[in-house]
């Protein structure tokens, strides 16, 4: 019997995340899995091998695991990027941030000139007018781009659209008497072109090219998302809230199954408009359809909304600016019912909780469910969980909840949280990574791409430095070490997905998934962690250079 060929990669340094052997110079791979990491002479014992020097001057880490992202990031790159900060697209081109509303308009004008038909819609994304002072973006700004074609631009938060006059006309909203809290009116009594919240956004979405159907089942988008993963060293990425209709599942299974597809996608079924019995039944059936590169069968639940959208549920004393408390997205009876049934069937549930009252509700519901249905190793995870305090982290530890926190928020919206949403003290404890680790809560950190850019090393930088866009350090006591941050973006996230036995470290038996780095994240200054250059990835033993053919 002949066994498969063995490749031994030589590297400048291999950071394994295996405490028994934290560093190595060589890693041996067979059949897409790791035979071992160590010195060449030890690995040679596995038999005849080919020595591969491609990474002789590079640093290998376990492939990064993004525990909270959405494949929609790949879809959004079909629209014009208009964000405030530089952002790399799937082809590696860096789109510079737009410094002013004028910049935004100029970019739309450039994109407009490339369109054919004079009435074709023009769409953009990533707009963040909070950086442009008090002036709001209005339809007149985008009317300078075109009055013939509908134009719609989604804000970075994903919760607001700005549109031009033509888009309002097509949506039937260019009329007096519109009375809706999400639609501000101008001096002329007509909508200004700003549309807040999902209801107002849905009405114009289809007219400006953001129709939900296109977003839900986008084959090209999934491929683009995978290319972004390679550029960021990610070998396993979540697609955290998908309705997973049959046709989307078939498409995802086919695309991820292609020989050149570089990422393991973990797609969660969104719990919405179903009973707990129905969604658990769906999850169990989906689980049976899992492949190596498409993992199905887990459930995502929304408990509340977002902090910057003032739809998160906060405990007393509520929002710093006095805004009314946010919204519950799922009744407690449904959360409890789902938790209990999922525990019984061994189905993994991740729960979106932004505000601390939502976190408290999830804790209460899990505590009750565990009394009815004891479970030893459920890995239920609170996603975002941004405002949790120390006592809540202690409860999480006791109940077995993992936390996947959102340090990117400090950079992108930390100044707004400080000044407006939750105020200084709570802004400083947001995404309390150090408290989570000290409390024994299994920790992951995430980008929520496309809300913020996919990039685990940037997210790790956020957890290490806690810097806001204006340069404020937001809660120094919650900064974590580089070593801890690197562990959370590998084994930490893998744990929350129940994949820590397969990925997350470089050791015998695991998948040959590596992030291939040009710089050593343990040698570079912690404040420059985000600047570590990434060559690409190895996934299942296959090489994926970021700038390769």
């Amino acid at each position: 019997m002949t066994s498969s060929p063995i490749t031994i990669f030589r590297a400048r340094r291999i950071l394994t995340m295996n405490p028994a052997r934290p560093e190595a110079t060589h890693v041996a791979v067979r059949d897409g899995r790791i035979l071992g990491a160590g010195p060449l002479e030890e690995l040679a014992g596995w038999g005849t091998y080919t020595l591969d020097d491609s990474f002789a001057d590079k640093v290998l880490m376990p492939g990064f695991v993004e525990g909270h992202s959405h494949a929609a990031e790949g879809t959004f790159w079909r629209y014009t990027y208009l964000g405030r900060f530089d952002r790399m697209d799937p082809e590696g081109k860096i789109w510079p941030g737009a410094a002013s509303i004028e910049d935004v308009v100029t970019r739309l004008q450039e994109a407009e000139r490339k369109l054919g038909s004079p009435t074709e819609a023009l769409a953009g994304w990533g707009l963040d007018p909070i950086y442009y002072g008090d002036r709001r973006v209005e339809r007149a700004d985008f009317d300078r781009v075109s009055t013939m074609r509908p134009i719609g631009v989604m804000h970075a938060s994903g919760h607001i659209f700005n549109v031009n006059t033509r888009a309002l006309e097509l949506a039937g909203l260019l009329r007096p008497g519109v009375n809706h809290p999400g639609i501000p009116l101008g001096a002329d009594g007509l909508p200004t072109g700003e549309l807040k919240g999902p209801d107002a956004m849905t009405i114009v979405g289809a007219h400006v090219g953001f129709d939900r159907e296109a977003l839900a089942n986008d084959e090209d988008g999934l491929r683009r998302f995978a290319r972004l993963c390679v550029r960021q060293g990610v070998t396993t990425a979540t697609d955290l809230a998908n309705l997973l209709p049959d046709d989307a599942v078939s498409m995802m299974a086919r695309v991820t199954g292609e020989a050149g597809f570089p990422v393991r996608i973990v797609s969660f079924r969104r719990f919405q408009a179903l009973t707990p019995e129905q969604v658990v039944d769906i999850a169990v059936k989906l689980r049976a359809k899992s492949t190596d590169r498409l993992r199905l069968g887990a459930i995502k639940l929304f408990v509340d909304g977002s902090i910057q959208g003032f739809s998160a549920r906060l405990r007393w004393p509520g929002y710093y600016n006095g805004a009314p408390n946010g919204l519950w997205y799922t009744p407690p009876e449904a959360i409890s019912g789902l938790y209990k049934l999922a525990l019984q069937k061994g189905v993994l549930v991740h729960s979106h909780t932004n505000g601390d009252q939502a976190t408290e509700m999830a804790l209460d519901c899990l505590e009750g469910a565990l009394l009815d249905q004891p479970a030893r190793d459920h890995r239920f995870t609170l996603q975002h969980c941004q405002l949790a305090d120390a006592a809540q982290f202690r409860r999480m530890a006791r109940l077995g909840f993992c936390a996947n926190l959102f340090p990117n928020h400090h950079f992108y919206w930390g100044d707004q949280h400080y000044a407006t949403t939750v105020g200084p003290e709570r802004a400083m404890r947001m995404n309390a990574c150090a408290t989570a680790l000290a409390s024994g809560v299994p920790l992951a950190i995430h980008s929520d791409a496309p809300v913020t850019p996919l990039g685990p090393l940037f997210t790790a930088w956020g957890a290490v430095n806690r810097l806001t866009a204006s340069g404020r350090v937001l809660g120094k006591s919650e900064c974590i070490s580089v070593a801890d941050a690197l562990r959370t973006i590998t084994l930490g996230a893998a744990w929350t997905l129940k994949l820590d036995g397969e990925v997350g470290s470089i050791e015998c038996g695991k998948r040959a998934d590596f992030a291939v780095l040009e710089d050593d994240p343990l040698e570079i200054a912690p404040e420059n962690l985000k600047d570590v250059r990434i060559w690409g990835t190895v996934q299942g033993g296959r090489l994926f250079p970021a700038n390769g053919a």
Partner: protein
Amino acid sequence: MSGPPPRPVGRLPVTVIGGYLGAGKTTLVNRLLRAADGRRLAVLVNDFGATPIDRDLIVSSAGDTLEISGGCVCCSYGSDLMEALMALPDQRTDIERVVLETSGVALPGMVASAVTLLLPYRIDGIVVMADVETVRTQANDAYLGDTILRQLSSADLVVANRCDLVDEASLQETLAWLGAESPAARIVPAIRADIAPELLLGLRDDGKPRLSNTLTTPGAPDAASLYQSLELDLPADIDVMELARRLTAPDIGVLRAKGILLQPDGRLVALHVVGQRFEIDAAPAAATPGKLVVIGLRTRLDRRAVEQALQPRLSTSLRSA
């Protein structure tokens, strides 16, 4: 202006039904489907799992849509209410009215406000169901209290349900409490969500309301009908806005009213009143102007006040007096 064309005769009235889990929304929805009596309703529910439709009503089912006997249709909107509402007028050109059941934690006032963004629709009324046995406890819940209170405060009608499960003293206390929490709403007591369907499904153009005479005052042993209806002649020169304002005054006791009026410019309009809310919309060409039909609780409807509301220029003469 482009956009979806309005229906030939007025916009589609939408009744929004809100209230927490267990307050009786599902029972009410099934009652309305049973009472449709030829009206072609589209009933939109968040999900059929939480809102089971009575099996004997279902003619057929396909995906998210149930065909209901009598020409009604029932759809679950799940992840996107707005998309369902945008598609409905084209999918079902025969629909006359929409009943929209919101999820237990939704704020019906916010849902109604979103519906008004869509040209084919008008909000007919916001009905919030309250379980008189539990609503005050729920309103004190640390998690849910503010949601329950915001639901109640947005109501045009509050159905105080399950009146048979509490004693008279506690019922009166709870009704008074509901009145304070929903100052703009009219409170309708009920057992098993049994209210006059006309309150929500509207009064027909063809004349008298057909009120159920089996409804009895909750808690009272006598068989007196809970509701009273009036049919009155409208003076030709009455100002429709003024009439609307008078019929929606807090103490007049009107739960629903409908009047057909011929405007000075020759347009035929319908005035729809649900509690404090009114809407003036185009009336069908065949409708006969000059009639007003009113429904209220027998104990609350102020017949004299309604009659006075029809006096032309009453307020003007009072002001000048």
